[in-house]
């Protein structure tokens, strides 16, 4: 695994999947997916349920090992490639299907815990600073179990952004967010994308986040079926995905 250190670099390749295959028992979730994402890109993964989007994101997050194939991080354009999965994890933020937070801890305790695990300085201050833009500062002392679905999702996003990631992985990040929450998410992602963060997200339907997408990739039955890179028109593919979602 080759890794380059600068978290917010906008040069070179952020992540490269080479002929990735993932098998769960007899079922093939991914069939030879090869995809190269340059630093600074915002890539939307679209496709029907079961097409392999979540598996690909989990492989990118080092949560799942591919059955075959290779993933490299910040592999080219790097002067100081590293070879340590912990260094990769330090540069990755992820929002998953589940919120990845403890119900019995408060919002502040959750973020402080993860700030400590990421080895961040002044973890409590970092936690409070992350709650502020998410609009949760007034609920900082409340246990997560008392939060609404939208608030939980905002907190999950705040947790993913805590280590200032160079690569942000989002699995349907707008799930559970009301229009105001989606607007906040769109603005937040636009800001960090502008700062040089590479984004890979799976998405369904219309969302505020689509405006920042620079490239769309469609998966079908575990294969890479379409890539907007040659045409340079990701919005067409997103519109088609939305149409397919609505059954029109």
């Amino acid at each position, binding site marked *: 695994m080759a890794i380059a250190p600068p978290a917010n670099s906008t040069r070179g390749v952020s992540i490269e999947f080479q002929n990735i295959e993932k098998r769960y028992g007899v079922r093939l979730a991914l069939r030879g997916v090869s995809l190269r994402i340059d630093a600074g890109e915002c890539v939307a993964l679209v496709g029907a349920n079961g097409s392999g989007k979540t598996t690909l994101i989990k492989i990118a997050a080092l949560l799942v090992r591919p059955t075959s194939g290779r993933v490299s991080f910040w592999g080219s354009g790097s002067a100081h490639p590293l070879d340590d999965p912990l260094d990769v*994890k330090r540069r990755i933020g992820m929002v*998953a299907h589940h919120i*990845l937070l403890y119900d019995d801890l408060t919002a502040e305790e959750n973020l402080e815990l993860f700030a400590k695990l990421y080895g961040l300085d002044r973890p409590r201050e970092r936690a409070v600073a992350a709650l502020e833009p998410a609009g949760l500062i007034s609920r900082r002392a409340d246990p997560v179990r008392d939060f609404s679905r939208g608030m939980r999702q905002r907190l999950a996003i705040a947790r993913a952004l805590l280590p200032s990631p160079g690569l942000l992985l989002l699995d349907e990040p707008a799930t559970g967010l009301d229009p105001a929450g989606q607007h906040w998410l769109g603005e937040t992602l636009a800001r960090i994308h502008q700062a040089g963060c590479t984004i890979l997200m799976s998405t369904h339907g219309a969302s505020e986040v689509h405006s920042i997408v620079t490239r769309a990739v469609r998966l079908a039955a575990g294969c890479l079926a379409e890539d907007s890179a040659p045409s340079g028109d990701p919005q067409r593919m997103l519109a088609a995905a939305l149409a397919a979602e609505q059954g029109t």
Partner: protein
Amino acid sequence: MAFARPTAVLLGKELQTEFRTRELLTTTVVFVLMVLVLFSFTFDPTSVESRRFAPGLLWLTLLFAGSLMLHPSFTREQTNDTLAALRLAPIDPTAILGAKILANGCFLLVAEALLLPIFAALYNLHVWQVLGRFCVVLFLGTLALATIGTVFSAISSQARMREMLLPLLLLPVLTPALIASTEATAGLFDETPYLSPQWVGLLVAFDAIFLTVTWLFGEYLLEE
């Protein structure tokens, strides 16, 4: 650094969560208390009989209580897939297991400390005379139970029939530690109390082997 610091952070989280909810500790203490009280009424033991069967009864009760307590150790990480959040963090994966083993060991030791006076009173045992040596046996036996129990809790949490799987895996593997703990405890409650170096040695070896195996292969236990 990649192990000690996150282990301490995660141990703090485990203790904070438990002392807020008190789910595991309350369940374990109530279970052990019920079993000890029920058996003491069933047998109405004399001092001689107690010395004979109380050690085995104590360790069997702790084993069953342990399997009850250790089961939620990893299944409650499934609620919001928090185990994935821990695996995403830049920490040595064995730190996750290490913190769980320490936390479960602490909970078991607290439960044992609460129940020890009741056990001594119900079974007419002079625990105080051998308290120091008894604590050594309790610590080594509890460490074995916490280590193996935590590892199998991680394995069984991803399986179907997980509630039944943990005791089924736990009992055969823990048998040597259970025998050693029982025999060492029996020696302490003998008319002339002694601490058997053979049984204590077996417990030390058991703990060392399984802690090393957990250290070496723990990372793979947590994978999806």
